[in-house]
């Protein structure tokens, strides 16, 4: 394992220290327990958007803390979900009285830890909500699995709902928007190489020189299937078609009811993409793939969308939700309506995403 790190146990801490000294204008960092929060938090009267998850996906989530995006982010150990005390302390630090929305990627660990955190924060008098991101079409059903993983749509949702919170949306409005973005977004990923968790010291899986993994998540875990390596056009076609051809997806989610102080279950079904849809396309590097190759992916996505009557109205291309140094990419399509576009275009000022300011 060769990485720019010191002791494996200090990796996350030292990277956060680097972030703190690099971006004091945008964010601050608390170390015991670990959370990243807006330099100007709490902001009275505005909903505070908090996300978090295992480290190793940088710039997500810490790099998305700042004006117009996250109020706070809770980094776990590499690829390990953070603990409830982090989220709870973070919630207390950023709540401006309008409540806290936790954006949770759908992994068993994240879900369980964020649910505990929400309970703790609510018990402290903070209005809370948990909205799940589960957009990975590589996972086919929710009955026989832990459900679809939260991947690329997370980044888009953090941007869009962060802008809505900045604009004064209340907690229910922010939650509705986040749920909608999640229902409108679908993703698929692939890997050319594995990555190495520092503490593990060797690659999570081995891939032959002519092999690739299709349908991976963002944790260096093996994917849906292993296939013979092929051209970027074929890879992109396969992934884009999986996204566009994916049928309705049903699952039951648990959301918090601030009236009764209990979890309520909701059945949610999202609808497939259709000709005529306007979309935001997000082509993401898993970390080790340079942006030049992403443009070759984007080229083919654009061609397929044009063929199928899906109109790309915005795009994001780069390493935003990564798996350490893994080579590979993911593609996310997000159906965009007026509300979504308005908040996508709104100013954002974070280390990882910046425009309009």
């Amino acid at each position, binding site marked *: 394992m060769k990485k720019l790190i010191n002791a494996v146990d200090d990796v996350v801490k030292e990277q956060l220290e680097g972030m703190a000294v690099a971006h004091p204008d945008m964010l601050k960092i608390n170390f015991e327990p670990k959370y990243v929060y807006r330099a100007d938090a709490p902001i009275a009267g505005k909903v505070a958007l908090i996300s978090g998850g295992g480290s190793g996906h940088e710039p997500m989530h810490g790099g998305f803390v700042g004006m117009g995006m996250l109020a706070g982010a809770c980094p776990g150990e590499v690829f390990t979900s953070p603990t409830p005390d982090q989220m709870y302390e973070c919630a207390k630090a950023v709540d401006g009285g309008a409540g806290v929305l936790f954006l949770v990627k759908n992994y*068993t660990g994240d879900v369980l830890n964020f649910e505990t955190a929400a309970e703790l924060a609510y018990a402290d008098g903070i209005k809370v909500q948990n909205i799940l991101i589960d957009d990975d079409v590589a996972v086919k059903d929710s009955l026989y699995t832990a459900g679809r993983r939260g991947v690329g749509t997370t980044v888009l949702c953090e941007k869009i709902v962060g802008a809505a919170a900045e604009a004064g949306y209340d907690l229910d409005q922010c939650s509705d928007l986040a749920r909608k973005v999640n229902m409108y977004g679908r993703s698929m990923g692939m890997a050319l190489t594995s990555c190495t968790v520092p503490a593990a010291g060797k690659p999570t899986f081995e891939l032959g020189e002519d092999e690739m993994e299709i349908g991976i998540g963002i944790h260096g875990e093996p994917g849906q299937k292993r296939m013979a390596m092929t051209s970027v056009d074929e890879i992109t076609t396969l992934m884009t078609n999986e996204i566009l051809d994916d049928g309705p997806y049903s699952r039951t989610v648990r959301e918090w009811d601030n009236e009764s102080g209990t979890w309520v279950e909701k059945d949610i079904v999202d609808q497939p993409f259709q000709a005529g849809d306007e979309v935001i396309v997000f082509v993401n590097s898993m970390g080790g793939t340079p942006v030049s190759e992403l443009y070759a992916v984007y080229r083919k996505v654009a061609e397929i969308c044009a063929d199928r009557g899906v109109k790309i109205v915005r795009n994001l291309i780069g390493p935003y939700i990564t798996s350490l140094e893994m080579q590979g990419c993911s593609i996310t399509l997000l159906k965009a309506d007026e509300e979504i576009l308005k908040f996508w275009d709104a100013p954002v000022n974070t280390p990882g995403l910046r425009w309009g300011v």
Partner: protein
Amino acid sequence: MVTKDQIVAWLENLTVVLTENKEYLTQLDSAIGDADHGINMDRGFKKVKEKLPSIADKDIGNILKTVGMTLISSVGGASGPLYGTFFMRSGMAMAAKEELNNEDLVKLLQSGVDGIVQRGRAQLGDKTMYDTWAPTLETLNAAFATNDNTIEVLQAAVNTAEQAMKDTIPMQAKKGRASYLGERSIGHQDPGATSSYLILKTLLDTLVEG
């Protein structure tokens, strides 16, 4: 009778056993998960070890609850809240106790496992830690009905646990990260089922030591 000192010794031994098995558990998790289960458990029990001296004079219920809270706030991942809940619930069930009879011992484990199920909603055959615990608890209950030698009964339970752990190999995962692999999860032993076996095995070894 199982003494408080033995419970503390069990927890201390666990910190050693989980350090020894850090790579093994991580290796199992890299086949069907994200290669961190051993690292997570080791991190959590290292924290437990730090905490132990300051709580060793509390009652067993208190000690177990503190272990649970320590795991919840240090492990993360899926196993953090699950094992955290396990110890929190077993601690609540052992409130104020300074020593445990056989019945207590079953109750300790049963409450913990109930906590795991309530949190994680796993069912038998989902290829999780629960698949180790369910048959193990049956063995415990059945064996104590006819034999009150704690060590003999625990030995039987450990045998069941070992078999149950191995029985996760042919299962297809339906919970946790391994479920994303679908059929590719078949043929690998579940990391959480393995750490659960180690937890029980270490309890037996601790009591055998004396």
